[in-house]
């Protein structure tokens, strides 16, 4: 059987692609990779387009190898991977929307991000005339007693916009179909031609709750492309920010999940903890969400003694309060009644979709970028990755609880060992291709970047973990009652903005 390494060797290598290899292959080998994905041997990390090429990032877990396969599409067509491997479908629909690259043999030819409102089709390829706006055809679900419940794009709470189409039989959900793309801001297009500074800011605004993780992924991809290394102090400060971000989001979400089960006392306590994290971040880094603090080459601001004191006080406070909250969660039967065995994601499905983050780890997928593809300083830090197999709302809450504990321990380790020194390395104005993966609070974020010889962005692709999580929500809700949807949805907390880009 052909290995990923062999496929790469058989192709035409891209000389400046780092740290993992990239090679252009023929259509037959492209299809072969699709088969290996379908057989479950490899994991799809992402799929994206350019004006006349398609790219696919793959991971072979047995070999421990990552590589990018490219295919020239001068005729703007490529063999569909989605026809073989469902996780690719939405990514392919997006490639077609943005670049006019048509997946041959695709089962689903509906547009995805393009709602017919941009004034023209294929904004990043050969712009076509705007197609007459057609009504979006939802998948059919037929049978006696079935009825549809349309929800959104404007939801009842303070949340992002998207559309959910439920088909229900009484209270039981028979099918959920998502329609996303409402928050499409055209970030891929805005990136093209941007200098690194502007591009880093754009990356930090892909998904507000993961602004640190995105800025980090982008910076690492840029540094890989330019073959530079940021100073040690910057590397450790970045990890500190990333763990603070994880903490803030987990606190917020644990509270919000309980609140959706009408257990608001948890919400009040968790929100208080979240606010304390943001205030410590503000003291330490000058911004509550730590936005624009990570740049290619290093970090934008140093952490002073005030900041260190504030973060230490935060950790002490969280260590004091959090255990009581866990007990409260664990001992409240009325709460457990809502979360246990609700919204189950089967391990097999999580594996097939390469689903990252707490959703994957609650469904048996033992993958955490910080440990599976370790990057500094995590290779020098002690932490555990918890994995459960139940795959229900309860399991996702418990994974997050464990991650809070680990993040607190990581923050202490980082503060204890924070090296002194420079904050930023100068950037050479050169070209190159780089790729990076980092663990955001929601899961693995992939950044791929090509810099032109002028040092500006020729193409940047950022893949949110939600791409492989949203489809699983459709599966998780099946057979549950409509009233449990908010609980399932909140326990996933997929990103709209990160996905829609």
């Amino acid at each position, binding site marked *: 059987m052909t290995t990923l390494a062999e496929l790469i060797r058989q192709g035409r290598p891209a000389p400046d692609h780092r740290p993992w290899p990239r090679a252009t292959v023929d259509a037959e080998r492209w299809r072969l990779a699709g088969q290996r994905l379908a057989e479950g041997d490899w994991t799809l990390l992402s799929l994206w387009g350019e004006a006349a090429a398609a790219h696919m990032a793959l991971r072979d877990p047995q070999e421990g190898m990552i590589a990018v396969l490219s295919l020239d599409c001068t005729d703007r067509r490529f063999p569909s991977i989605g026809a073989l491997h469902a996780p690719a479908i939405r990514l392919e629909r997006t490639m077609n929307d943005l670049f006019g690259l048509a997946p041959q043999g695709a089962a689903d030819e509906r547009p995805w991000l393009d709602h017919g409102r941009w004034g023209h089709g294929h904004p990043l390829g050969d712009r076509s005339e705007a197609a007459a706006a057609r009504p979006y055809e939802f998948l059919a679900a037929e049978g006696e007693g079935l009825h549809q419940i349309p929800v959104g794009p404007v939801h009842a709470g303070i949340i*992002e916009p998207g559309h959910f189409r439920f088909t229900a039989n009484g209270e039981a959900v028979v099918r959920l179909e998502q329609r996303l793309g409402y928050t499409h*801001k055209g970030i891929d297009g805005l990136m093209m031609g941007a200098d690194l500074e502007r591009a880093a800011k754009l990356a930090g605004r892909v998904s507000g709750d993961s602004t640190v993780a995105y800025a980090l992924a982008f910076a690492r991809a840029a540094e890989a492309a330019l073959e530079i290394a940021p100073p040690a102090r910057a590397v450790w400060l970045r990890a500190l920010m990333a763990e603070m971000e994880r903490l803030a989001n987990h606190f917020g979400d644990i509270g919000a999940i309980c609140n959706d089960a009408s257990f608001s006392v948890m919400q009040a306590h968790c929100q208080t903890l979240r606010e304390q994290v943001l205030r410590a971040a503000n003291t330490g880094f000058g911004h509550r969400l730590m936005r624009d603090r990570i740049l290619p080459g290093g970090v934008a601001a140093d952490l002073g003694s005030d900041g260190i004191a504030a973060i230490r006080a935060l950790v002490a406070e969280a260590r004091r309060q959090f255990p009581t909250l866990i007990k409260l969660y664990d001992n409240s039967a009325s709460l457990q009644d809502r979360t246990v065995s609700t919204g189950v994601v089967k391990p097999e499905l999580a594996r097939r979709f390469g689903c990252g983050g707490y959703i994957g780890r609650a469904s048996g997928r033992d993958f955490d970028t910080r440990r599976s593809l370790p990057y500094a300083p995590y290779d020098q830090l002690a932490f555990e990755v918890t994995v459960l197999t139940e795959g229900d709302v309860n399991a996702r809450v418990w994974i997050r609880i464990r991650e809070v504990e680990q993040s607190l321990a990581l923050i202490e380790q980082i503060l204890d060992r924070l090296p002194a020194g420079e904050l930023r390395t100068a950037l050479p104005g050169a070209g190159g291709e780089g790729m990076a993966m980092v663990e955001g609070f929601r899961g693995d974020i992939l950044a791929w970047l090509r810099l032109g010889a002028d040092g500006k962005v020729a193409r940047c692709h950022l893949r949110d973990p939600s791409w492989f999580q949203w489809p699983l929500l459709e599966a998780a809700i099946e057979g549950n009652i409509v009233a449990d949807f908010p609980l399932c949805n909140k326990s996933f907390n997929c990103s709209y903005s990160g996905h829609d880009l």
Partner: protein
Amino acid sequence: MHRILFDNLVKGALTEPAPEPEDAALAELAAALQRSARRKLGRSLSIREIDAGSCNGCELEIHALGNPFYDLERFGLRFVASPRHADVLLVTGPVTRNMQTALERTYRATPDPKWVVAAGDCALDGGMFAGGYACLGGVSAAIPVDLHIRGCPPSPLQLLKGLIALLDMDKVRNR
């Protein structure tokens, strides 16, 4: 469970009264907001939040207004689920073309008199996302705006200040 509830009773409210500079500012705001809200409205104000393509950063800080430190509801300000219950639309994001219709329809569904507050740099002029094919570039490109609150994202304190400014406006358009 009872332990925690009991502890909370004994511990008292977290809602901020005084010492540090930031806390003092908050207490002052609380007083100012209460005064003007009473004067202008003599009742509560209902806010409907609409994400018109934000990165979600603005939503995170709007959410924070409800935490025990800021406790928005003590000022008579509250978030409601339907535009039909709202006096104020609080809109974020650069208004993506894909959200334009939904935003306009939500506006039309809100009864008069109504105010529109655009929160965040994106909502002002599209922010970092201005100039692309996918965004209108600011809320006022789609619906009339009464007040902008800057910031990326605006902090909860900035949001509170903005809401006070709204209540203090002398000329309130009556539509």
